[in-house]
């Protein structure tokens, strides 16, 4: 008896293929790429906009999550349509579904 084949969405298939072939998922799927330099600087690639911006808390929308950054003296150093750079003292990062 042939095992019924699992059905995936196209996106999920691409994700699996990317994982298997070790390809960058952020490029293929448009996922956000987050880089944290120590606790001082944060770079977010492929963001979807700012939801909240104060010196203590910044919330940034990404394709699949909302990224919450908490800390002190947070400042938006530069921002364009795809990239966003934050500077300050980061104390926590959390991803909200």
């Amino acid at each position, binding site marked *: 008896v042939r095992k019924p084949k699992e059905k995936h969405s196209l996106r999920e298939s691409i994700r699996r293929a990317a994982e298997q072939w070790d390809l960058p998922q952020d490029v293929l799927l448009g996922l956000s790429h987050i880089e944290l330099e120590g606790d001082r600087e944060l770079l977010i690639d492929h963001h979807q*906009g*700012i*939801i*909240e*911006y*104060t*010196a203590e808390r910044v919330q940034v929308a990404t394709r699949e999550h909302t990224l919450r950054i908490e800390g002190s003296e947070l*400042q*938006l*150093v*530069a*921002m*364009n*349509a795809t990239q966003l750079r934050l500077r300050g003292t980061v104390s926590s990062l959390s991803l909200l579904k």
Partner: protein
Amino acid sequence: VLLKFINYMRGNLRVEIRGAAVERFLNLCVTNGVIFWDVERTAPDVLYATIRLEGLFRLRPYARKCMCRVRVMEKRGIPFQTRRYRHRYALLGGAALCLGLIWLLSGFVWTIQLEGCRQMPESELLQLLAQSGLRTGVRSAAVDAVDIKNRVLQQTDQLSFLTVNIQGSHAQVVVRERTDTKSGIDESQPCDVVSDKTGVIHRLRVRAGAAQVKVGETIMAGERIAAGTMISSQQEVWYVHASAEADVRTWHSRTLRLPAEVRRLTPTGSEKVRYALVLGNRRINLYWIESAPFAWYDMKVEKYHLRIDENFRFPITLIRETWQESTVSQAQIDPERARQVLEQRLLENQAARSPDAQVLKRDYIFEEQEGFFQGTLKTECLETTGVAAPVGEVLHDGTDH
């Protein structure tokens, strides 16, 4: 730093954004290509940010949409600084004229740099170059490097190589002087090989011709190493282009003297500075006094060339002459110092006279005579000799075979 400079050149604005949905306003702006940096939130409804000059006009509709108010707080950059000069026509005209002149003058050769002149006087080469079409003030585009090279090399036999590189208003002329001392006898012509050094033969290499000397024999300058006249056992004579060289041991002795007492100039501290400006070949003295201001002096000349970079030079030179007054006194030379100086000079002299010689033994003798020091350098060297010379002695009349 580069980014800051670019932003400064393009002009940027510090704006205050006031409204209830400033985050939404920022998102709307960035998705439509208006970029922000140095964003600072000072109050829940107030935000300061820096934007490019062209961004200001583009963000107005989004501000209305998000019910935000945008106020320019500060203008920075070149566009704002130059704006205040826009009615100063003379200044703008002067700047345009200056740029035009620089552009015009950069099309001419203003400086000629010679490289490689050792024996040949630079003035002679400059004269030859001028006759061939390369002189100060000539248009760079009119300089034909190949033509100049051919013309100069035709007019002199002192040079073996010449190249002209035009870089902006600067012409670099690189030459190589003819160094071969061969007699220039054509290889098809018969010749002898003679020694131009006196010594004991250490090694002999005869490639063509009949060897006239043996290893261990003494050879005098002018004596034959190999003869181009060959005689067979049947007494037949024929001539060849002899080719040979010999390594000879030579002995040299050179003596130099140095006076024990020299005149020493001691600066008094008093000095005078004069300036002169050289425009092209014309010197303009920026002082009135012509004669030397001190009886005894030391003069330091500093030259400052006006140039933007190595290849963009102007024919303007500022000369600063510093005349330092000195007093004269007699001073005794320290014997140890004299010994070193004489040895150094003798070694330099030796190296200059026989640059290819391999020094086998060196003996330096230093003597203190009355009123002077004397240094003698005796060297034993291994040198290569052998120059082509016309066939000298013909043993028999005969025809070439």
